[in-house]
């Protein structure tokens, strides 16, 4: 009881101190954050950042690659750790043997690929840093099929502009499943992989088995886990929330280079 009062006093004191400064201004900003127009104005900076970043970087500017000695002793698993979806759990039980990656949409040559067929595709191994939007970084070794090689096989139609990844994992009570999208520049980048191995073992479930995206110039939420199928599309605004990804539909930036 006594303890609670003393913290209350300290809080009151700090609030009074806050009253002397610009801190009330911050709470006034809460109202602006809930308007329609202000966050849209703020998002203009996202477009500017994306354009500037693309001006600065070559199409194939490479993310730093690390040595085995740099691997994180414990690689975190964020977002979904184990999808609760029945179809996914059946695949886990069957060792992902029945799983096929479907590549469709605006392609001349739609495909269905098994894990073995994916493993036979042109591959790349890379030790890279994974940066979460929350702020943490971890280093792991990824091996996967180069998305550029898969696109060459599927032959995108000229109007295709984005690659959309639909995932198995249900994210919330609304039943919304994870999805993400990247543009063709990112899809064709040498380090952009559909990864099936993590640290020399088959991709574990917490990291997105059987297949996840690696796009090493982007933040973690761009790199969809538990991929079910891939679609090539011309526009994103007619897909689900219209912003190109599960988190994007909840206010996060589509451009995740920052």
């Amino acid at each position: 009881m006594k303890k609670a009062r003393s913290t209350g006093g300290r809080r009151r004191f700090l609030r009074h101190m806050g009253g002397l400064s610009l801190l009330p201004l911050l709470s006034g900003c809460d109202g602006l954050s809930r308007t329609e127009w202000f966050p849209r104005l703020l998002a203009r900076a996202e477009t500017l950042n994306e354009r500037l970043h693309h001006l600065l970087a070559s199409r194939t500017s490479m993310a730093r690659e690390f040595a085995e000695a740099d691997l994180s002793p414990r690689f975190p698993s964020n977002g979904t750790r184990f999808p609760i979806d029945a179809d996914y759990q059946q695949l886990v039980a069957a060792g992902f043997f029945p799983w096929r990656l479907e590549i469709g949409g605006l392609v001349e040559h739609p495909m269905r690929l098994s894990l073995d067929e994916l493993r036979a595709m042109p591959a790349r191994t890379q030790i890279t840093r994974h940066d979460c939007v929350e702020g943490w970084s971890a280093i792991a070794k990824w091996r996967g099929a180069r998305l550029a090689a898969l696109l060459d096989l599927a032959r995108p139609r000229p109007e295709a502009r984005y690659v959309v990844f639909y995932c198995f994992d249900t994210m919330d009570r609304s039943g919304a499943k994870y999805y993400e999208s990247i543009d063709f520049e990112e899809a064709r980048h040498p380090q952009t992989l559909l990864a099936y191995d993590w640290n020399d073992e088959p991709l574990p479930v917490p990291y997105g088995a059987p297949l996840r995206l690696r796009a090493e110039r982007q933040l973690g939420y761009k790199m969809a886990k538990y991929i079910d199928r891939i679609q090539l599309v011309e526009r994103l605004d007619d897909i689900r929330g219209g912003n190109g990804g599960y988190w994007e539909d909840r206010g996060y930036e589509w451009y995740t280079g920052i």
Partner: protein
Amino acid sequence: MESAKIDPDPESRGEIYRHTVTVRVTHWLNVLFLTFMLGSGLQILNAHPSLYWGSRSDPQAAWLEFSAYQTPSGELRGHTRLFGGEFDTTGVLGASEGPEGTLEQRAFPGWATLPSTRWLAMGRRWHFFFAWLFVINGLLYIVYIITAGHLRRDLLLRRTELKGFGTSLLQHLSPRRLRAEAASGYNPLQKLSYLGVIFLAGPLIVLTGLTMSPWLNTVFPWLLDLFGGRQSARSLHFLVAFALVLFVLVHVAMVVVVGPLNQLRAMIIGRLRIEGDKG
């Protein structure tokens, strides 16, 4: 120059023209932008309130960590760990009062973050928008003080000031001396702190911020080497922000000591009243 049009001879009324309109405008814009940057920055930090050195964020290697834990009696306690030292910071850091008035796990309290509730996506929007305005305003200011001679005339230390710097340090800290000196210009300590903020802290906080962008890492990999990795850059970004907060506290304290109304007025309308000449 600007004052010449309004007031041909301010000194006749016991006033000197202290701050040009460019300095005044960039100063107050900077106050606004830095406040937004600090609030949204703490919102972003709250998403992962631990800081590390190097490239990785290994959970056990944090040099600074804010967390919360529940006591056996079910009470929530806020906890700060700094270089292995453990501190109970309930009410402010680690756990603080939420909108319902009960303690919640949160590194920095709602009154210090923008938005005040946990909202990382919105915090990032504010931060990356006002970062542009902060940088543009800062660059305009730097170009101005160099081209208009303000840097050379008022901010750079004179040779004589450098010579007697050690002995004059203590004298400069007496309030009476400060008040007397305020009329004639900035004292050496003041000059040094302003120069540090403008040419060290400013560029550092921008560059460490850019170093956290995975895309910009592919363009400027040397920034990663300069700061010792992405998590080091993140730590430095926080430390420089903390240093700027300390600077502002001292800066405001000095204004209060020297004459808050006169100094505030000077930064708003440009003219500083000289004490000795007052009626």
